[in-house]
């Protein structure tokens, strides 16, 4: 009998303690971030892959060496390089990242010999209505600015573009 009442009372007390805690939280200030108005200071978050802009020339640093493309675990990058009509060097004419497939692992940034790639930190909340927008052209901003590297005339017969290997046969 005594145990019965003790159990009820201790149980009741535990409930009161719980309600006390929630009441205390009720009076606290919410931690909510009013997102579209307020934004977290994002400094090191890995956003989509983008080109680093050279401080001096305002150009990208890519030398079209294909290192990132060989490393990318998700096979989401592709580049086209052509021979320069001026000095015969390889010139980047197209660099695409399929952001839909990217796993943001930064392996491409690791292997890049010229540190030409970076994570575009502020661009963390992009959304899209079509899939096409999500295949990102990394050269686009440079073309728009008309930086020197994007204006080198190239040999039209793009002989230097890496040949795709034959697709694997069906099992």
């Amino acid at each position, binding site marked *: 009998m005594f145990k019965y009442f003790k159990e009820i009372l201790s149980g009741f007390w*535990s409930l009161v303690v719980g309600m006390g805690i929630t009441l205390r939280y009720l009076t606290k200030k919410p*931690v909510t971030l009013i997102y579209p108005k307020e934004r977290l200071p994002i400094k*090191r978050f890995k956003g989509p892959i983008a080109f680093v802009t050279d401080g001096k020339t305002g150009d990208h640093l890519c030398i079209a060496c294909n290192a990132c493309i060989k490393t990318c*675990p998700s096979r989401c990058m592709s580049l086209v390089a052509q021979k320069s009509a001026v000095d015969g060097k390889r010139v980047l004419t197209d660099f695409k990242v399929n952001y839909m497939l990217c*796993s943001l692992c*930064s*392996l491409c940034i690791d292997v890049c010999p010229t540190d030409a790639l970076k994570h575009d930190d502020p661009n963390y909340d992009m959304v899209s209505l079509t899939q096409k927008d999500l295949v990102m052209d990394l050269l686009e901003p440079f073309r728009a600015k008309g930086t020197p590297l994007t204006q080198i005339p190239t040999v039209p017969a793009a002989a230097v573009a890496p040949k795709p290997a034959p697709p694997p046969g069906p*099992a």
Partner: protein
Amino acid sequence: MPLAETQEFLEKDPKKFGVGSEAVVSPDRIAEVARDYRKQNYFLECLTAVDFAECFEVVYHFNRWGASERTCVKILVPKDVNQAPSLASIYKSADWFEREIYDMFGIIFAGHPDLKRILLPESAEIFPLLKSFKGEPKGADVVQSLKLIEEDARGFGARLQGAGLEEAPTGDYYLNLGPQHPSTHGVLRVLLHLDGERVLSGEPIIGYSHRHHEKMMEIQNYLACWPNFGRMDYVGAMSYNFGYALLVEKAMGIRPSPRVEHIRVLTTELNRITSHLLWMGTFLLDLGAFTPFFYCFDDREQILDILEMATGERLTYDYFRFGGLDRDVPPELVPATKAFIPGFKKRLKDYHGLVTKNVIFEKRTRGLGVLTKDQALSYGVTGPALRACGVRADLRRDEPYSIYPALDFDIPTAKDGDVYSRYLVRMKEIEESLKIVSQILDKIPAGEIKTKTPKNVPRGEYYSAVEAARGVFSLYLVSDGSLNPYRLKARTPSFSNLSAIVEMLPGCLVSDVVAVLGSLDIVLPEIDR
């Protein structure tokens, strides 16, 4: 049977290969060997197969609780025989492992109680981990999936009838919990056989989140496997990073700098706390308490801020590299962590007041879903679920890696093996991890965070295990010396832990099923891989 007398017996260096010895026995004697090990209280840690040109190698890893004494036993299954004896009657954990091997390689296990597909849909016609399987032609996925929509719908009815599971007029019936159900923590399906609300039996059906990690890793180079380890167990991804880093570093024979080691342990333990917090929140959500979920997530967000400072990611970390790290931690990380700890300790007290001592919570969880030590051994249960049965087993102590031996922390245990014990163990583990974090904070030495490493792993077979948030995560690597792994098997803790639920469900009510399921802390993509 002394293994030393068998063919191809090798003593190996556990520091490098992860196993103390390795032997090949003939298939008809493996049951005898396993029975021997079972008697000596070894559990079947990992069971997998490797496809060679002339035969399959079925690889068994036995290990012990307490100080690790791992041994590897193999049997050779010729391709034309394609049959191996089943160990399901000796080790219950072999049941699912063998089904997985059948699913992936097509090896038949004689004497298995119910050999059927486990990860792939039952209508699948492929054995994907065979080396002769070179992928499906492009575009097959849509056609295949749409075909599946019809087949699966038909298949379910057929399976009910085929297995003699028609709904009898006696009042018992079958209920599908999942794959879309608020409390299955992802896409698990549990087929419950019920009498009223009382569970007669329950069968977990997995594979709804199968993401072909193992096949994928075979066609990628070692570096490109990193993202896979961030996504297998996305809640405690740092431990998985750790496991893979250890495996390859051991095989290549490189040692990261002390700075790297410290940062690794720091981030792993912080990640362990987030994992336990997420578990706690969702587990209480299963029990119908909403508010703790939000408090847990609030704390978790704060830790994620710290981890984001270090890694740049919130969830699927690809932070470790061979012999190093992806990026160095910023200087503001240490003060941020220090600022976080006192508030979190206060919050832990609130959790105890709100949950641990709550009479409803206690009544709901005490004495429920009891797992005995013997069952835990048989099912190969590891991690907090095992420690809740009173077994002091934690690889951070038993098979020390990185800087764990130098750190001061306890291995919390509980004795009842019920849902409440599992809760208590995890709560204490949060405190222990916090202890580790505060120890390391002041001691992070300066140093390099990247090491030059070879591109490939020397030929050989390597095994490496770490204590992840959910239990023992281990990797078995067969390397042919090339740039890609020849076979990389991931033994994930939840896979074995979940299989033990069969023992815990009978006699429960439907409400308890959710509680038991929640208490195991499963992460589906880690189980299905």
